[in-house]
């Protein structure tokens, strides 16, 4: 019996319940940006700073140019769709000068999400923002060339990584018969996404 065939104990019971101390980067942000409301929390590796989408450019500009923060490397920029709680643009930053990390999460509404571009701060943001527009429909205002990068040029109003876009049913892409056989044999776990029926045909 291999170890992973043992019981089904959920992992969260073993995780520590006490909230860990928040790293020193959070205080640096609060000192550098006294007028901006930001929430700080400690993630598994980095400090998480949650802000409103309207303040994003101001916060990130300070993060880059403030001497104590000096985040000169935009590691990653991604969108996340939290359905009813709206969208988020997540910036992962690193400072080569100080060797510290931070995650800045900017909250946006699901309807007509707009945020100011940061491609003027880091050129790395250029392609990342184009991808986030492709996948989530987030409009980055002031971006020099906000055209599709990974998706086809004419795919302007379909945002595949949004949670309201389901995967096509298995039959559609593996042939009807195979899908039926697999379903009968119980190979499709419920909730795996394969059994989702699209809401409208020909979407």
């Amino acid at each position, binding site marked *: 019996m291999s170890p992973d065939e043992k019981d089904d104990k959920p*992992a969260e019971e073993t995780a520590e319940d006490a909230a860990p101390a928040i790293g020193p980067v959070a205080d640096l942000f609060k000192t550098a940006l006294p007028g901006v409301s930001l929430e700080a929390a400690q993630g*598994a590796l980095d400090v998480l700073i949650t802000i409103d989408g309207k303040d994003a450019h101001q916060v990130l500009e300070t993060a880059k140019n403030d001497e104590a923060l000096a985040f000169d*490397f935009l590691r990653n920029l991604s969108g996340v769709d939290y359905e009813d709680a709206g969208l988020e643009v997540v910036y992962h930053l690193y400072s*080569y000068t100080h060797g510290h990390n931070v995650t800045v999460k900017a909250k946006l509404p699901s309807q007509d999400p707009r945020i100011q571009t940061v491609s003027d701060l880091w050129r790395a943001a250029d392609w990342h923002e184009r991808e986030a527009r492709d996948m989530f429909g987030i409009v980055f205002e002031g971006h020099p060339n906000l055209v599709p990068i*990974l998706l086809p040029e004419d795919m302007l109003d379909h945002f595949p990584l949004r949670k309201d876009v389901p*995967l096509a049913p298995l039959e559609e892409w593996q042939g009807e018969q195979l899908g039926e056989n697999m379903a009968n044999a119980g190979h499709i776990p419920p909730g795996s996404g394969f059994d989702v029926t699209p809401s409208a045909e020909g979407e």
Partner: protein
Amino acid sequence: MADMTTEHELDTIDVNVNIGPQHPATHGVFRMVLVIDGEEVVDLVPHIGYMHRGAEKLSENMDYRQAIGYQDRTEYLAQFNAEMCYVQAVEKLAGLVPPDRAQYIRVILAELNRISSHFMFLGAFGTDLGVFGTAFTYAFRERENVLDLFEEVTGDRLMYAYFRPGGVAWDVPRDFKERVEWVCENALVGAMDLDKLLTDNEIFIMRTRGIGILNAQDAIDYGATGPVLRASGVQHDLRRAEPYSIYDRFDFEIPIGTNGDSYDRYLVRLAEIRESVKIVRQALAQMPEGPILPERMPRLLRPAAGEVYMRCENPRGEYGIYLVSTGGTQPYRLRIRSSCFCNLSALKHMTVGHYVADAVTILGSIDIVLCEVDR
């Protein structure tokens, strides 16, 4: 009258030249449109996305273990490194700590994978520059040794899916240590052969030195990482700067370049092969016996709600997994931060002002994997 002749001789128009998507010099399905004035590139428009499979969306519709396989298919030249990043991200959220033996197996395989990936680069780069055949043969001879070992360990040549959150799928074969040592010896011989063939080759130097210079500040601004960043003189390696797994237990150098040109990128990768062999040998000596998975493993992983951005030093740079969990059996959001995607965004900056033939050199020197760029 004489003035007019001079003016007419200098009057040229810009021509658009399309390279790819089906072109051997583009290392996969990549297209770039060069705007050229004579032989000189004045603008470059890269087109990516031909290989976009929606790996992120697919992973969000699978449970945590099924998504491991997608890492292989994303980064198909450094599969173990990609898997390592993903399983560590899951471990961080699930609170799993892999046993020591599993950590050592992972490091050995990931470093061997770095060696095989760099050999792939050396062979392909030599071919890009007209050293046709020889460099490729030398490099593939060594790469095959590594792949044979991987096949012996995992049962598959390319799509391993061998790492698991919490450890590895099964233990390595009994003769693992001898086999790895043999592969290391051969890798050093292969690195020496390629060193002799290319490093002092006058044609090679003329075609790479001073070509595609990226200075340190621009490299950081474009988010370039890995050998591309280190060739620009930034001594930054995530294995040293933010040690993950057990990389703090090994002694190794971080090779850097001085000029940030294509030649330096080649030299950095060649030196990294030797450093990886160093790490593998230390890991082999330290590797303990013992279990390869934790005592109590849940059958279906349900990591605690939360998020983590796990980053690893892959052969091509920083590979990141941004994982958001809501406590379910599937990742809520899985974002793959592709190292090549960011390195490639600096292509235009590096190429403008050079000749058309150099565009191929520069693209080759970034060492892109299009499956990873497009995901």
